[in-house]
């Protein structure tokens, strides 16, 4: 089973929820898809870490064989090729690795070469497998890195284990890629008007993908909670409400895993995971013994 944790904005508590869900599951794989700034590994401190390069194919043009016919330039939908001085010029940052130019070239002057765009780290933290994707600085899109993280998750995520996908913030391509194979989506929301606005964006996204989903209300106070009101109004599943708590904030900033620090939080995340599994129609597989 794969559970994706996402939110419309950064700082709502995605990593808090994802890390603690992975920590209470008996056997779990934690996959950090926030490849622009992954931070889940800071909590797990994985050991026996192996490193893997993420590469994509980009065209390599042999100008000795290029006739300057312009077919490749006219074909490219991403404007990664321009026709300058009767030859194609290539802009790697815009290439989506579709391979069309290679197939199309009548002179067979274009071949593919590998371009490194990021890294994957796979390690262990007790019974948890920790997969971290990191996009190289300056790259335009982390989609290929995320795809590789999820490929590793599928390899490690055997029957009976729970895969937790820590998504990037927002609702753009990188988030769509991250939730594509998820069985259930957990949406983390803040109790503000801005939080609600962003929550609505991710609700729209998960509905577009026909994913079953529930909401975790984080940083709840005694004050009005527009996100909670919206959930009640629309009859959406609220999986848990986490109170605003400076102690919890302190633990997180110290890199501690909350469920290991206090039985109350352990209980909260065990019941959250149970609820998710029930909602998703899976058998319970949580670790009730601390």
């Amino acid at each position, binding site marked *: 089973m794969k559970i994706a944790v996402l939110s419309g904005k950064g700082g709502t508590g995605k990593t808090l929820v994802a890390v603690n869900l992975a920590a209470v599951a008996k056997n779990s794989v934690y996959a950090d898809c926030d490849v622009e700034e992954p931070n889940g590994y800071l909590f797990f401190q994985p050991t026996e870490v192996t490193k893997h390069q993420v590469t994509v194919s980009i065209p390599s043009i042999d100008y000795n064989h290029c006739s300057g016919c312009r077919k490749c*330039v006219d074909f490219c939908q*991403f*404007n*990664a090729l*321009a*026709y*300058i*001085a009767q030859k194609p*010029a290539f*802009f790697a*940052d*815009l290439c989506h690795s579709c391979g069309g130019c290679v197939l199309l070239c009548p002179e067979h002057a274009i071949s593919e070469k590998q371009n490194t765009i990021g890294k994957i780290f796979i390690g262990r933290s007790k019974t948890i497998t920790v997969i971290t994707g990191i996009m190289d600085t300056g790259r*335009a899109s982390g989609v290929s890195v995320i795809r590789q993280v999820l490929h590793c998750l599928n390899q490690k995520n055997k029957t009976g284990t729970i895969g937790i996908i820590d998504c990037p913030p927002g609702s753009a391509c990188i988030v769509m890629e991250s939730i594509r194979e998820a069985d259930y989506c957990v949406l983390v929301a803040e109790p503000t008007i801005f939080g609600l606005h962003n929550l609505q964006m991710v609700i729209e996204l998960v509905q577009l993908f026909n994913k079953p989903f529930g909401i975790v209300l984080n940083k709840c106070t005694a004050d009005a909670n527009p996100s909670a009101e919206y959930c009640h109004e629309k009859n959406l599943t609220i999986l848990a409400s986490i109170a605003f708590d400076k102690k919890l904030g302190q633990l997180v900033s110290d890199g501690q895993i909350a469920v290991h620090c206090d039985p109350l939080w352990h209980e909260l995340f065990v019941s959250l995971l149970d609820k998710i599994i029930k909602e998703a129609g899976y058998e319970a597989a949580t670790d009730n013994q601390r």
Partner: protein
Amino acid sequence: MNIAIPVDETKTNVCASLGRAPYFMIINANTSEKTIIDNPAIAASGGAGIKAAQSVIDQNVKAILTPRCGMNAAEAFKAAGIPLYQTVSESIDQSLEAFNKGELIELQNIHPGFHGRGGK
């Protein structure tokens, strides 16, 4: 020789953006004849700078007058050997006059591009 200027919806003013300008004005420097062409990159999801530069390069342009230019487009113009001159007025006529008098300097500040993130 031809000169290109990014122009806005009014078709009389210089557009603040090059890659996302709605039109380009192509001016024949010998005959002073002006033609307006559509910028095919106005709604491109990515690579607008390259696509816009391509449409201008295809017009056999020898100089571009623009208030600014992104990195990718600038690279394409450089490869094509087409210099960029920085406009100082919103008026197309004033910009052309300044260029003809040799008053415009080559564009120095090439911005890194907005790449789908908007900006102003």
